[in-house]
């Protein structure tokens, strides 16, 4: 009987075990598992590269993202302009880098802030229950009974377009999910015996729920933060398609990609939308990979 690949792997492990040559690096199981997830590691690497590139954009590109050079518009990629130039002769590569700053700031910032709000409310409400929980639950239900993009549209049209408003809206629409997650986690943690032990000492609610319980609820929240980062970045792009995103004078990935609406550009000037489309997709993909990797590595029920 031919040995399957699994069998071969087993033989290897067994040999290692018998020769006592297995790696005994002292790393936490979660880190280990995450590092074993090739996609997640790849995601983390690319994620880091994109973030660093955005942060150090001025060092990486000699151009100013706002500098218009009408005489050199719509040039294909060249040594001078890696991603070519756009309709006003701005360097697309530079704009993608600078756009990344804003887009990532919006995505990550909104995700983290909505998580902060959601957790703050969710932890307390989940642990304490009572009318606070009822009210917070109702409010989150109101927000969640709208399809998110519809609510965002509604709010954008009410508050007007600006970076700050957009983030505020993302937080407003995003905290509900985090709240529910934190709450659900708290509800199950509340039954854990160490929590009951703390209660039997009469410790304050604040200490119990934010100091002792919260750290144990963090891993699914981390996963959720990554996933909402991805979602917010995509929503930002979708909103700029509808003309309701970040004001056009601020370069964001969504605003840059928006030129693809013009079929002429879509057909003839691939460099104006291709690279940024790929960067958005790859970045979101990486964030998703990281999220998935985190989920797998922190989920005790799955072995691998």
């Amino acid at each position: 009987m031919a040995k399957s690949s699994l069998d071969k792997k087993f033989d290897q492990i067994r040999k290692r075990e018998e020769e006592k040559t297995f790696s005994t690096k002292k790393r936490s199981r979660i880190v280990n598992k995450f590092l074993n997830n090739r996609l997640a590691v790849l995601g983390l690497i690319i994620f880091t590269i994109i973030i660093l590139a955005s942060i150090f954009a001025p060092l990486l590109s000699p151009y100013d993202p706002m500098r218009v050079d009408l005489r050199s518009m719509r040039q294909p990629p060249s040594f001078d302009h890696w991603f070519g130039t756009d309709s006003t002769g701005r360097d697309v590569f530079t704009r993608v880098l600078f756009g990344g700053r804003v887009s990532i700031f919006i995505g990550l910032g909104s995700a983290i802030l909505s998580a902060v709000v959601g957790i703050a409310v969710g932890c307390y409400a989940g642990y304490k229950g009572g009318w606070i929980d009822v009210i917070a639950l109702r409010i989150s239900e109101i927000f969640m009974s709208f399809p998110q993009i519809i609510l965002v549209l509604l709010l954008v049209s009410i508050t007007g377009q600006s970076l700050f408003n957009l983030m505020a809206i993302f937080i407003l629409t995003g905290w509900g999910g985090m709240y529910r997650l934190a709450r659900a986690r708290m509800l199950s943690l509340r039954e854990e015996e160490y929590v009951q032990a703390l209660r039997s000492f009469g410790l304050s609610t604040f200490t119990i729920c934010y100091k002792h319980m919260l750290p144990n609820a963090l891993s699914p929240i981390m996963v959720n933060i990554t996933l909402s980062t991805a979602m917010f970045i995509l929503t930002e792009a979708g909103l700029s398609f509808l003309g309701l995103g970040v004001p056009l004078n601020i370069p964001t990935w969504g605003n840059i990609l928006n030129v693809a609406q013009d079929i002429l550009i879509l057909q003839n000037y691939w460099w104006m939308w291709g690279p940024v489309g790929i960067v958005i997709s790859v970045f979101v993909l990486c964030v998703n990979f990281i999220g998935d990797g985190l989920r797998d590595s922190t989920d005790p029920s799955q072995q691998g």
Partner: protein
Amino acid sequence: MLLVISFLVYSGLELSPGDAVSHMISPELASTITAEQLDAMREAYGLNQSFLTRYWIWLTSMVQGDMGYSMAGGVAISEIMVKTVPATLELSMVALFFSTILGCSLGVISALKRGSGTDNSLTVAGMAGVSIPEFFFGLVAILLFAIELKWLPVGGRLLPHYETLWDRIPNIVLPSLVLALMMTAGAMRYARSSMLDVLAREFITTARSKGMPEWRVNILHGFRVALTPVVVLIGFRLPLLIGGSTIIEQVYQWPGIGSMFIRSVRASDYPLVMTISLMYVFVVLTASLIIDVLTALIDPRVRLGKE
């Protein structure tokens, strides 16, 4: 619940700049209209009444089943709904149908072949599916299939002379597929993890211990149980689907509720915005109710109203 939401939306609209009348005037011609004319229009539309009065009027007529009239064109909102809701339903249901079937089967395959090349590539493909901005995906699909290859129409829903169902199918293919593909990825991930979850449960071992063939164990015992959370999660994603269809409707000139909503929001057409928002909420709430019913059908534990 609906009441609270309606009040919040109404007050929100009150806060937004301008009203329906000022939106009826195009900016290029705006300077030619006098303030008196505008006031006369406001009076005619009842916009000079206080906010609460207007809300009360709107609410009472709504309760009586009268959705009122769109301000921009004076068209009965019920009529607009009759035209746009089926379009959106058509689109999202087709997308939901395909994405569920495709997502579930791929997810199950992925779970059963866990760790294999198939699983990995499906996972990556699924992730990629949710990582591309949907309008971008839609536009590229148009470029490819409608403009370059000319296989499918660029958009629209009904065409003159297109009477039969068969005639209309080409129009729905692209938008629904694009929407479905975005959904599939999610459904697949849910199905996969749910299936993995179930496969680790003890009754799967029990089923195996009865000496049944693997397919029966996996499908009858595994998938059947995994279905419940998948159905619930797909239900929870329904708002996402409806939201997603908003953008796809724009891209494909699909005359649905989403594009109508965007127009009415831009035009501050209060009655229309209100009705559509509430309809969205209603759909979401109904969906969750349907999901409850469905889960009850699928899961006997819920059916009997016990834990």
